[in-house]
């Protein structure tokens, strides 16, 4: 029996509802209250557009679509379905179950008068999974997100994300192992913060406790820098026009530059 056929994909029955909620709570850290609002209280909610993957009588995966009216041009609105909350139980990951759930859109949107389906996901995921499976395509949008950091706690989360990357990438891990660099960042839109890079990980330090090896000041947003395909050229231009200032030795600056891709995680 193939691994995929272990699973039955079906519309959410009444009984394992709590199991699906638990799966979503565990996967997305959503509260029960939020889930109840998102689904049960939603005026457009359609129970037949919530599907679950069953394995030995247990809910091990789920996916849903939220129908709504969507404006697709200045004067045209259509019925569309927003793909939401795809989750797979951690014990069943890596077996193609997410693909089965995504592809089930082809079955479950039938007879719903849905003209279009859409969703939000990472470009890589859609390129390798959603695109080949159901033909989703990326649409450039005219939206931008403005963000103002009020305290460094979110930066702490980003540092944790960087450490996960370091842990999973041997090349970066080796680079970090040879470093012990303290960098103070003074960036637009963010409170001042200091990080120590190396020798085993990246850590967020309390400002003023350690003398930094490098001080990075920027008058532009780092999104401007990292969204550019020619990142090196953009960085050099920003340095020459003094939109970014780095105070410290050239040796330390080059060390920091060698980690610019990783720093993109922190700064975007």
């Amino acid at each position, binding site marked *: 029996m193939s691994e995929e056929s272990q699973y039955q994909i079906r519309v959410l029955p009444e009984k394992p509802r709590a199991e699906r909620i638990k799966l979503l709570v565990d996967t997305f850290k959503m509260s029960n209250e939020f889930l109840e609002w998102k689904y049960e209280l939603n005026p457009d909610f359609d129970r037949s557009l919530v599907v679950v993957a069953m394995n030995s009588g247990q809910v091990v995966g789920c996916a849903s679509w939220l129908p709504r009216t969507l404006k697709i041009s200045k004067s045209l609105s259509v019925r569309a379905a927003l793909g*939401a909350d795809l989750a797979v139980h951690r014990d069943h990951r890596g077996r193609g179950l997410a693909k089965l759930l995504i592809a089930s859109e082809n079955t479950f949107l039938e007879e719903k008068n849905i003209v*279009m389906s859409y969703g939000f996901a990472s470009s890589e995921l859609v390129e390798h999974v959603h695109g080949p499976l159901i*033909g989703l395509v990326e649409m450039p*949008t*005219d939206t931008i997100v403005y963000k103002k950091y009020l305290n460094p706690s979110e930066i702490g989360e980003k540092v944790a994300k960087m450490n996960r990357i370091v842990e999973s990438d041997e090349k970066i891990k080796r680079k970090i192992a040879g470093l012990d660099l303290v960098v103070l960042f003074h960036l637009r*839109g963010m409170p001042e913060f200091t990080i120590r890079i190396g020798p085993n990980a990246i850590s967020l330090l309390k400002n003023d406790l350690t003398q930094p090896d490098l001080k990075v000041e920027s008058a532009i*947003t780092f999104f401007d820098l990292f969204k550019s395909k020619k990142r090196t050229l953009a960085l050099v231009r920003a340095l020459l026009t003094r939109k970014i200032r780095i105070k410290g030795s050239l040796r330390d600056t080059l060390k920091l530059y060698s980690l610019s891709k990783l720093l993109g995680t922190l700064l*975007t």
Partner: protein
Amino acid sequence: MSVQETRKYNLRTYRTGDENDIISLFNKAYEHYAGFVPRTLEYWTWCILSRPDLSEEGITVAIDKGRVVGYAAVEKSGKILEFCYDPSCEGKALVSELLRRCIDHAEDHGASSVSLSAPLQDRIVRDVCEELGFTEEPPPSLFLRVLDIPYIFSKIADQRKMKKGLEEAILIDLRGYPPWCAQHIAILVQNGDVTVSTEKLERPTANVEADISTISRCIFGSRRTLYKAILERRLKIRPSRRILRTVKVLSMFQLRNPSLYMPVADFG
């Protein structure tokens, strides 16, 4: 003009009875955009008023001469779900006041950041965000696919005037669509009238072959998108001598790069 100028608008917390003014302001402010759910009382009540992380204190309206001219809804976490203002007002002062109030609300609830998604073209919001120390971040990537192409084609055709004298019978063979979606589309152009159906034409003047991704891209793209798809052999037109005339007809069914703006409230 600096955003530090004196208060011009009366800002207050939402009161029962403001709903219709807020909804009409929102729909008016974004009438030139696509990509969002047009606000109705039912949708707004669910999407904003019933949302668990949002208290009524997080909903601010700006009043000028007894009229609602600005509005913002911010979660306790600092996420601004909806933000709009009357474009006929002095926008910079109004946007600044509304944003400051959102920042105060987020700070009062211990949020680590404040974020706002806005149309890229909105220079007033961009300038005020810059002055208030916001940084820019990329929006989540939007992915979509069109399922009911005949419906969208018919709706677009209803809004367009076709040139008289153009006589075409085009049969589009669709690849990769769910089995319950139309697999063929026939476009008949006769003396300025356009008919879209799912019948199979006996003697089409041109045969078009394309997959779901290509058609979705072309509907939201420009004429250039069509030519690019032809060059990349994702859109095949036979006989090749009919390519120019067929592209002319297909371009009538394009939304022509609509500006897509996605308020966080619709998906976050």
